[in-house]
């Protein structure tokens, strides 16, 4: 399958992420790069500007900016030309999907179809064929896996933001090793330690962020929450919000509830869970049992 990778305002994080895909070598035997900023490609960028044929999947990376000239041509012109040519479009990373970090730095910046959660109409004719793969960066397995599914023309169920459900139907809370601390509302956490839940004080957005970080581990070994730093909500339209390491609260009550959980139900359960002081959760996990 022939791929064209076009970067706008990007840090190359998504490209680097893909290079970390453990099965990369084998995986890329099924794909041909017509152009990629880092990988050996069939065409040079000036040739892409001049015009090529045969793009099957257009991969859009980085934040779009009004009037952006990539080399000689307006980036929009390239997007329209190759967007029409491609069977599918994949927005890779949060910048290309929702605007992300680079959208914070100036006006007229957005993702391909979204500015935050606002659905834009500038590339509406591509909406039906677009797949959104947000993440800062995208997980390598999510990008490689999605492209493989597209190549095989297998069904690819999407959510309302066009994120593939196979990877984004879950929350980061799924598979988090701190779930017991969450259940019993134990928030005595220090960054980098194994104990405690970061939902209450440390800004963790895992309970309302869609993604597979705790199901498909980064580099096969870890995730933010497992390592002791909060989920920053990087796959969501409102990323990055301010104050990522603290939990916004109203008189001690988290301002945002776990996904789909009514506040009254959450507070009722939390009140009951907090009443029990369970000894096991107050001890460091690696403490000697005898001492």
């Amino acid at each position, binding site marked *: 399958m022939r791929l064209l990778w076009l970067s706008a305002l990007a840090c190359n994080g998504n490209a680097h992420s893909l290079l970390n895909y453990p099965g990369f070598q084998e995986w890329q035997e099924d794909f041909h790069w017509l152009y990629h900023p880092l990988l050996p490609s069939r065409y040079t960028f000036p040739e892409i500007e001049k015009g090529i044929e045969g793009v099957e999947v257009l991969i859009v990376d980085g934040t779009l900016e009004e009037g952006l000239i990539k080399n000689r041509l307006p980036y929009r012109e390239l997007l329209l030309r190759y967007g029409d040519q491609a069977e599918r479009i994949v927005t890779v990373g949060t910048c290309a999907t929702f605007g992300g970090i680079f959208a914070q730095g100036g006006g007229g910046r957005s993702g391909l179809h979204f500015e935050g959660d606002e659905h834009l109409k500038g590339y509406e004719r591509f909406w039906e064929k677009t797949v959104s793969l947000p993440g800062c960066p995208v997980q390598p397995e999510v990008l490689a896996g999605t492209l493989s599914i597209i190549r095989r023309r297998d069904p690819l169920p999407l959510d309302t933001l066009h994120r593939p459900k196979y990877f984004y139907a879950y929350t980061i809370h799924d598979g988090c090793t701190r779930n017991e601390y969450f259940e019993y509302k134990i928030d005595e956490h220090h960054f980098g330690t194994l104990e405690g839940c970061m939902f209450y004080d440390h800004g963790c957005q895992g309970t309302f962020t869609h993604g597979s970080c705790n199901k498909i581990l980064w580099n096969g070994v870890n995730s933010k929450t497992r390592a002791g730093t909060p989920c920053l909500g990087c796959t969501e339209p409102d990323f990055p919000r301010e104050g990522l390491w603290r939990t916004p*609260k*109203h*008189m*001690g*009550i988290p*301002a945002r509830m776990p996904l789909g959980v009514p*506040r*009254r139900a959450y*507070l*009722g359960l939390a*009140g*009951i869970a*907090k*009443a*029990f002081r369970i000894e096991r959760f107050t001890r460091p996990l690696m403490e000697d049992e005898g001492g």
Partner: protein
Amino acid sequence: MSSTTERVDRKAKKREKIVRTALKLFAKQGFYTTTIPEIAGKIGMSVGNLYNYFSSKEILAQEIIREISAYLGSRIREVNDSDLHVREKIRRIVSIYFETARNEPEMIDFFLRVYLSNREVFHEGCEGMICVNEFVTEIMIFFDDGVANGELKNQDFFSAFGLFMGYLGGMVFLNGERILPRRLESYIDDISENIYNALKVP
């Protein structure tokens, strides 16, 4: 109605009667002076039968506080579900509390004289705030809404909770001791205004 439904219904009514009677006696005489035979005697049922409903005096007292909490919680929930300004919501909550103290004085007496005074009765089964969860949850929702709407100052929960509920409890206590020179209801406006001034965004 089938005989099974009738039996269940009768049992529920009996259970309610026990709770009501025990509440009155506990509130008036205290937890320790009140005995199970006395409660049973008042209703005209045997001591053995009463134990079929509640296996101990402690469990009976715990059920009572749960019911009081559920009652007050449901009343405050109506306020939370309304679109009123926070100032008016405070007035409604104060009114509910004082109204309850007037119309159901044993509820508030039980809360102050048994639940808060005989903590050992509630240690097992009512840990933390479990048995007053419904009431506390509604107060939390009231605070949360107030802060989210920009009407209340964002502060520590217990500082605000203590100010609100401690104030109301104190006034009902003074009223119960017949120390207040005026009727409890006549303080609603002043007290609501004081609470509002203390909690509002500066």
